[in-house]
């Protein structure tokens, strides 16, 4: 009955408009997203180099992937990067946002800090990796340590000995700025009267932070957590590829690099499709789980 009313509610020209704009978009979406996805699923059951004929191998690609220790390393690395990235970005982006909104910075001073924190977001990933490679590989980091009186050294080079911590640090450094802007806009939306009332009631800055600011911006924090999670699993490749190339050996392999290497270096497209499908499944499951957990906590 309600549907009939809705149907009646749309005029002929509105329906025409919907058909005219909806159908081409849907067809385009199916052609660009759905068809390749199904094609990838299908190809994952074949042994295929991307050029020649395909050979049906059933689940063999999946069996090989699960028995490959490099794939295990890749998953562990991805999880570690995502976990620590979440931690660093969430804490620091929120801290910077709170500082820039609640601390008594002048407008100009605040603008400069916002620009500085946001700067890594407008740099190309190649520039970023180039800069940090120089820092860690050409001795600048050692000099900084020595400046502070630490004579620490790394026998194989910092990037070779600690590729994962360095990748986590640089990835977080790149990511803080954009999330900080989201947090700033969320904090700015909180009514000043609430803070004033809290102050009158005797609440200090920390009390205000934990009782007003953080609970109010929790939806944005949830968005930040899920967004970092989903984007990182796919985007870790962007940093690993120019930074370490998965090395030394396979020490800094991530799933994205595993897929890339199989497809474009080994020319095992069927195998790469299977790995890509697993990467997608893991991303969906992780994002779904985290989203549900946070939503439950918010409901409480």
């Amino acid at each position: 009955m309600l549907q009939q009313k809705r149907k009646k509610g749309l005029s002929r020209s509105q329906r025409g408009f919907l058909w005219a704009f909806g159908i081409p978009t849907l067809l385009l979406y199916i052609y660009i997203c759905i068809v390749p996805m199904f094609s990838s699923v299908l190809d994952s059951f074949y042994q295929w180099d991307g050029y020649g004929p395909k050979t049906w191998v059933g689940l063999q690609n999946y069996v090989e992937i699960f028995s490959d220790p490099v794939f295990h390393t890749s998953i562990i690395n991805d999880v570690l990067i995502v976990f620590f990235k979440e931690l660093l970005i969430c804490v620091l982006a929120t801290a910077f946002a709170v500082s820039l909104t609640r601390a008594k910075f002048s407008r100009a001073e605040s603008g400069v800090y916002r620009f500085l924190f946001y700067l890594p977001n407008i740099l190309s990933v190649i520039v970023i990796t180039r800069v940090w490679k120089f820092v860690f590989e050409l001795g600048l980091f050692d000099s900084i340590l020595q400046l502070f009186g630490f004579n620490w050294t790394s026998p194989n080079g910092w990037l070779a000995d600690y590729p994962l911590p360095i990748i986590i640090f640089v990835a977080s450094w790149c990511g803080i700025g954009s999330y900080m802007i989201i947090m700033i806009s969320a904090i700015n939306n909180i009514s000043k009267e609430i803070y004033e009332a809290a102050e009158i009631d005797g609440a200090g800055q920390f009390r205000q932070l934990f009782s007003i600011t953080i609970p109010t911006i929790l939806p944005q924090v949830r968005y930040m957590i899920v967004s970092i999670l989903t984007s990182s699993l796919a985007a870790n490749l962007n940093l690993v590829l120019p930074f370490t190339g998965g090395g030394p050996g396979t020490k800094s392999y991530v799933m994205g690099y595993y897929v890339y290497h199989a497809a474009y270096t080994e020319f095992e497209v069927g195998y790469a499709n299977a790995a890509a499908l697993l990467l997608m499944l893991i991303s969906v499951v992780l994002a779904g789980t985290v989203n549900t957990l946070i939503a439950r906590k918010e409901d409480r």
Partner: protein
Amino acid sequence: MKKSIRILTLLIGLVFLFSATGCNLFITEEVTSTSISWPSTSATTTTTSTGTGDTTGTGGADTPTGNGTTTATTTKTTAGVRTEPKLSGKLELQIFTNESQTADGGWTTVINEFEDATGVSVTAHIGSSVNTMMSGRWKKDNPPDMVWIDGSGISDLVYETSGKFYDITSLYEDGYVYGTNTRIRDVIDPNMMTRNNGKIMRMPLLSTAGGVWYDAKFFKENNFTVPNNYTELLTMAKQAKAAGYASYTYPGMYASYCLSNFIMPAVAAYGQEYTDQFLSGSKAAVGDSRFKKILQNYTDFCRTDGYLMPSTTTADHTTVQQRWITHKCLLIANGLWLPDETRKLWAKQNFDMTWHPSPMIEEGQKQTVLITAKKVAVASKAKNLDNALAFVRFILREDSQNTLMYSFGYMGVRTDMQFDVQKFVREAGGSDASLSTASALSYINSNKVDRVYWNESWGQLGDIIAAELNNLAMKGGSATVDSALSKILSECGKP
């Protein structure tokens, strides 16, 4: 009367003038014509034969008709010099270069000469990302007509087994170098030919070899001796370490540099047969004690004795090259293109860049270089097959070989051409980079070294060994020679 004589004289003068000019024009045309086209067809004998069967390539002036029939047309002048059939239309090429001026310039020169000689209009896709850009077209069977197989993003093995390349066996067996009476099979070094089930799908065009590079001036100033074998390498490394220098580096992000230029020559020092078995992924050869010894020496050198430059295993080309040029390290593993690639870095360093064969060989073994052929292939779905085959024959001409050799810093593949250092330096513009490359090529062509050929494409095996080299080089690393060998052996025999 006088007026008439004057007019007549003027007319005669004009006739003479026009005759002279006309003659000059005529002569110029003739000379130009001779310089750009092959000998006149005024006195020719023509033989035409038709056969049926496989169109397994074309040789000389053979013309495939595309329907299972091959029409072979051989045209000869009375003087015995072959005349090429007229070509027309287009030709599309895929050429990987590192985008250096010299390499691009070399190809451009040869392409222009081909266009002038044949009238074919050539479209060349040249650059460092061309293989990736073109891969979609190869997948859709809409490839360029010919590809120069070099750089990343292309696998000759995959393309060949997928039927992307045209069978050029008959071109090799019966074809002639363009515009000459020279049979291709008579002049191409047979060591560089690869057959797949008896068929030739790729034609060698240039060849190169790897080793280590050092600054001869710096060595002299610091009394270092360039090592010829592993024992001497250890001696040099010990002396260098005492003086505060690392001994060896390579771009660890691409550890195949270490494998190809430092490790594989040591494998090659055990002879062509063992090398062939090794490259074909034979478990017996890879698991052999000789390779194990090389890996052990490498591990001892890099990890135990700590002679590898720190940061090597994750470094890229630029980082290691920069550190090596600023004398943080003495030896770098690389191919012959290093002087050209780094010319801007070392131009102001008063650097004497010098090449040496890999010192990973045992004491008593002869220095060995592993020669790798760089090849071209014609697409099986080439739209301009005749032109592509003619171009392959054209780039095997002596002048084309010279142009490409000088521009790339590579060696040719023709056995009838002598390497001329002076000419190389002169043709390459006399730069320091060309002097370094010329000196390396001179060394490789001398009798100081044994030449072993690398013809097999070994798929994933190379990647696995390269990754293990990084693992073995890491100080405090958990990888051992046995564990590395076990991983490598598990990859042997896979396609």
